[in-house]
């Protein structure tokens, strides 16, 4: 018997600190698989955001360092301009990228910085205990929307993929999910395209991952996966919004 599935080399062999059923773990592995696939571990420079994924530097066997909350896109701009030959990627949550980091991500995308952005949208602020995020669903209860998010006062969930796809500077913009095997396989393809956009010097690559956060959704991992299907995907349609499939 031959081994057909194993941990990607670029992932350090340590346990994740994530809660049971958290999709951060899956997305981390997909990123590791892409780094292995394109052999960029030694060129990779990762920019960790502030959220449940803040320990990115513990989990990847590559140079990774910390950006202040929301500033990943600006930090990565500085890195890529200083070392264009390196593979530069950021891994950011929905609070980090779509709330405090709105200006930074939009302007990095508008400048067409040739970086790869992994955006985990789990509809809450995970690390700080489940507050409303810009992507929280209307009516969704969080610790700062105890009566459910009211679009009239808190606005509608923000569709970052569509928003960034509208900027001329972007090369590849897509949205994926990892809540079932079909979506997960498609997600792999999309992430590969985003990697290629940088590796082939085409430009700015961005993949939004709809992700479950069972702890703050107060759901079991099974229910959380279902919620991604029933609630998230209808509002946040999956697909490639800019650039072609590989």
């Amino acid at each position: 018997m031959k081994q057909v599935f194993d941990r990607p080399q670029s992932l350090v062999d340590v346990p994740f600190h994530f809660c049971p059923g958290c999709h951060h773990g899956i997305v981390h592995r997909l990123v590791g698989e892409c780094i292995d696939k394109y052999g960029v571990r030694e060129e990779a420079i990762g920019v960790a955001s502030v959220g449940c994924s803040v320990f990115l530097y513990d989990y990847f066997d590559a140079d990774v360092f910390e950006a202040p909350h929301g500033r990943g896109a600006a930090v990565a701009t500085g890195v890529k301009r200083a070392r264009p030959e390196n593979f530069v990627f950021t891994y950011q949550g929905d609070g980090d990228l779509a709330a405090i980091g709105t200006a930074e991500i939009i302007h990095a995308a508008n400048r067409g910085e040739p970086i790869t952005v992994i955006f985990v949208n789990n509809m809450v602020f995970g690390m700080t205990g489940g507050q409303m995020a810009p992507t929280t669903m209307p009516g969704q209860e969080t610790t700062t929307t105890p009566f459910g998010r009211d679009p009239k006062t808190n606005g509608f969930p923000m569709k970052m993929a569509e928003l960034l796809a509208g900027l001329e500077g972007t090369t590849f913009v897509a949205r994926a999910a990892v809540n079932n095997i079909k979506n997960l396989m498609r997600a792999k393809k999309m992430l590969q395209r985003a990697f290629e956009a940088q590796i082939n010097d085409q430009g700015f690559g961005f993949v939004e991952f709809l992700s479950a956060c069972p702890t703050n959704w107060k759901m079991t991992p099974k229910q959380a996966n279902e919620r991604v299907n029933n609630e998230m995907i209808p509002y946040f349609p999956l697909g490639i919004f800019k650039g072609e499939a590989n």
Partner: protein
Amino acid sequence: MYFDSLIAGFGGQGVLLMGNILVYAAMEEKKHVTFMPVYGVEMRGGTANCTVVISDREIGSPIIQSPVSVIAMNLPSMEKFAPRIKKGGLLVVNASLIPEEEVRFKGIECLHIPSRELALEVGDERLANMVVLGATVQKSGVVGMKALKRALVPALDPRYHKMIEKNIRGMERGAEFVKHGS
């Protein structure tokens, strides 16, 4: 009178709820009390914990370097916090998740509570934390059982007030286990 307890386990074992009930129980008996939860990243999947200090004098620091008692709901929290217990202190162990042989601490009193089994007896596995709480209060006598039960009302979110009855039975079962050894 002075008592403090560090209650630890992994997220979802209702560790902070146990602390809150103890706090309201102390307030019922007009005692000084402080409650200090440890939130943030350690709580994710790791050990979540809180420290309750009860005294009849003003309380200084709500964080205790070497607590008088520790309630360990799972193995990692026992390993992390039991060594800090003051000489002659009390370690309450959730025996359902922590095998007997793992508990090797000298100079302190250890209380093993088969919380899951006792909770199942009373009808609901999720009452494990109430069982341990009842046992600890019975053992330490820090507050009266009456105050402990009455504390459920302010401590529980109104949505869970229908569970008060079951929680009380869980507490009693734990106290009984300490009194009669089974």
